[in-house]
């Protein structure tokens, strides 16, 4: 069972047998609007929930094709586990601000956004956690765009206007445990805003809100922009996405230089073309079993 499917089923359950999500933005909006009272984990109730349109996401390349879902969900499950452990672990495992996870990459196009969305969906399946996905890639707000929230109130607006409540900008989705903060209206001083002190405070606040909330920041590439280092100071964990057979080694090493001072940098290899099927089956089987045993009620 795929992450998305699980998430969607949960959403459906939440909607109590509501209509199937309809492809297309307008339909999604309409659908969302028709049920304003949909229960939400923590997003502002005033915003209509975002309907995750699987087909559209797949078409945009942000969700794996159906055939690959099972495999990828297993792989993401494996990745999320240490991240969660660091964020809300017990004792020494717990990192300061560990729940603030910055997703970075050396270069654009390495699959940062893809990883952010899929990881968010994977974490969202966890019963004990909710996830806030923040589109901090202000230069290229891919998530905001795909959700049809480009130009809507978002992160930049909150940063720009101290009066504005961040909760008002956070959008719920049809998955109760997943909410989304769009990039906001773009402006010339976008990078400066991201690097500002207020950004740090905002991040801090987002985390403090709920001890069981994990915040994922989708950020611009490390070498191209200067925003990420600012965010780096707040984030408790940095996950650098490396595209297999594409990211040149020196480029990645350069990018990692900028993260040198960060205590918790980890990597994930994306778009690996190695067919390590044996490893997959071995781990996948084990994971699946443990998953079932630990979380039987979710089924």
């Amino acid at each position, binding site marked *: 069972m795929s992450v998305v499917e699980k998430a969607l089923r949960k959403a459906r359950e939440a909607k109590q047998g509501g209509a199937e999500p309809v492809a297309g933005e307008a339909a999604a909006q309409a659908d969302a609007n028709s049920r304003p009272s949909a229960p939400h984990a923590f997003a502002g109730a005033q915003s209509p929930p975002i309907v995750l349109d699987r087909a559209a996401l797949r078409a945009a390349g942000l969700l794996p094709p159906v055939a690959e879902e099972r495999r990828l969900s297993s792989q993401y499950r*494996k990745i999320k586990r240490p991240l969660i452990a660091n964020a809300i672990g017990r004792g020494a495992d717990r990192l300061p601000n560990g729940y603030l996870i910055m997703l970075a990459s050396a270069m654009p196009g390495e699959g940062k956004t893809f*990883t952010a969305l899929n990881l968010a969906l994977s974490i969202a399946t966890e019963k004990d956690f909710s996830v806030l996905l923040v589109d901090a890639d202000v230069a290229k707000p891919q998530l905001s765009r795909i959700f049809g929230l480009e130009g809507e109130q978002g992160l930049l607006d909150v940063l720009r206007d101290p009066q504005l409540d961040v909760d008002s900008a956070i959008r719920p989705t049809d998955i109760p445990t997943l909410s989304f903060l769009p990039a906001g209206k773009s402006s010339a001083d976008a990078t400066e805003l991201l690097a500002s002190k207020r950004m740090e405070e905002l991040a801090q606040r987002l985390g403090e809100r709920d001890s069981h909330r994990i915040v994922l920041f989708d950020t611009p590439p490390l070498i191209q922009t200067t925003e990420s280092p600012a965010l780096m100071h707040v984030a408790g964990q940095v996950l650098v996405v490396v595209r297999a057979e594409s990211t040149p080694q020196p480029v990645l090493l350069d990018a990692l230089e900028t993260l040198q001072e960060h205590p918790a940098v980890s990597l994930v290899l994306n778009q690996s073309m190695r067919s390590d099927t044996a490893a997959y089956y071995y781990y996948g089987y084990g994971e699946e079993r443990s998953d079932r045993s630990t979380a039987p009620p979710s089924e």
Partner: protein
Amino acid sequence: MNAPSLQNTLEDFLDLLRGLWRFRWPALIVAWCLAPLLWIGIFMIPNTYESYAKVFVDTRTALSEATEGLSIASPMDSEIERVRDALLGGPELRKVANDTGLMAGALTGAQQQAVIANLRKNIDITGNLEPRSTMALFTITYRDPNRTRSLQVVDHLLNTFVEGTLGGKQQGSEEAEKFLTRQIAAYGERLSTSEQRLAAFKKQNVGLLPGEQGDYFSHLQTSMSDLTKDKERLSLELRKRAVLSQQLHAGQQFTAGPGDSGTQNPAALDTEGQIAQAQQKLNQLLLKFTNKYPDVMALRQTLKQLKAREAAQIAAAKRGDLGAAAQLSLTANPVYQKLQEQYDAEGVTIASIQQEISDREQEIAKLRSMISTAPEVQAQYAKLTRDYNVTRTQYDALLGRLDRARLGQQAATTGVVKFQVIDPPTAEFAPVAPRRALLILGALILSFAVGGGVAYLMQLLRPVFVSQRQLGAVTGLPVLGSVSMAWLDERRSVLRSERRRYLWAMAGLAVLGLGILVLQAHIYSLFGGVHA
């Protein structure tokens, strides 16, 4: 402990392959550029044809036994070595080069030298020579870009080879024969002069020369001893005659004596007795036989003679001539007659011996007179004879050797070294070099390899991450996991078509290579126009 490292190695290798795969297009482009260049290069190499000839050489023939002890039988391997040296020697090769037109372009000495050196390099003479065998199979091989010329060269070499082996020997024996003939002529002259000298000497010193009876001194000695012997014989004979004459006289006295003393004639009595005996015998015979019986007739004849003799005796006695009667009876006596004969013969013997003695005495005197000159002549003669004999022996020996040499030479020409050309100069129509098919294939493989090498270099210059393990190793940071490529269907099909294109491009090069390989002969003929 071992398994993980082995697995790691395997993984590293697979990672490397993945890394190379990234640069598949540059690699293929390199291969596509390189392979045609190499192929063109391969077709620029001129063809080399190889021609060869095989010769069977056998020294063991029926004649070889006959010529065993003769000088011409030389060991096979040295013989062949000599020929090989001669064949590959400068002058010989120069001749070959001139005859086959190889020297046409070479004007300077250095160029000619180079042509000859090249020729020598390309000629190969091999023979399976067994150390003690008299048989060998030789192969003469030569390589040249021009097939006809390669045949010519081998043909030339083969001829030289055969002639060299035969001709060398012939020349040698001809030399020997010439030498022998010259020697024989010289010795012949010497022989005839010494012969003449000896003959003249003999003529001059006839009689003084030792004949069958030996030399001068032995001659003298024998003559003297013969003289002594003759003298002894003479005295013996004289004594014998004296005895005989004595006996003859005694016989006369004995027969005369009784005649004087008595009246009775013993001779007559004797005759009477004989008559009586004959009469008695006749009577006895007549009792059995008639008168015509031969015995009776013979007896009557005898009786008649006896009666006649008795009558003559009686008549002589009556005349009183007792001597005559005795004489009559004496002459009739055989003993007396024999003595008389012996006496007479003795006289003749003595006379001949005396003649001999005088002859010998004369000879000895003559020899004695020559005693001062004889030894000198003898010595001279001995020397001349010795000279003559020595010359003669030498001359005979030389004649014998010449004969043998002639025989040996005949043996050589009739096949002491027998040649049989097993393979006349032949050359394949297909060139032996370059191995174009192999080279074309090699060029193809090399091109791919170079492409791979380029990919490898690029991959070294632009390293990426292919595996989780490698990522962790390079960065030194924890890697939480890897996410597989999530292929969208259209991207997958794009990738698939790209891969298909790639494979086609690769296969295209391979097929092109194989096509060139198959059609190489035709392609070369297009190129060949330049070289021929």
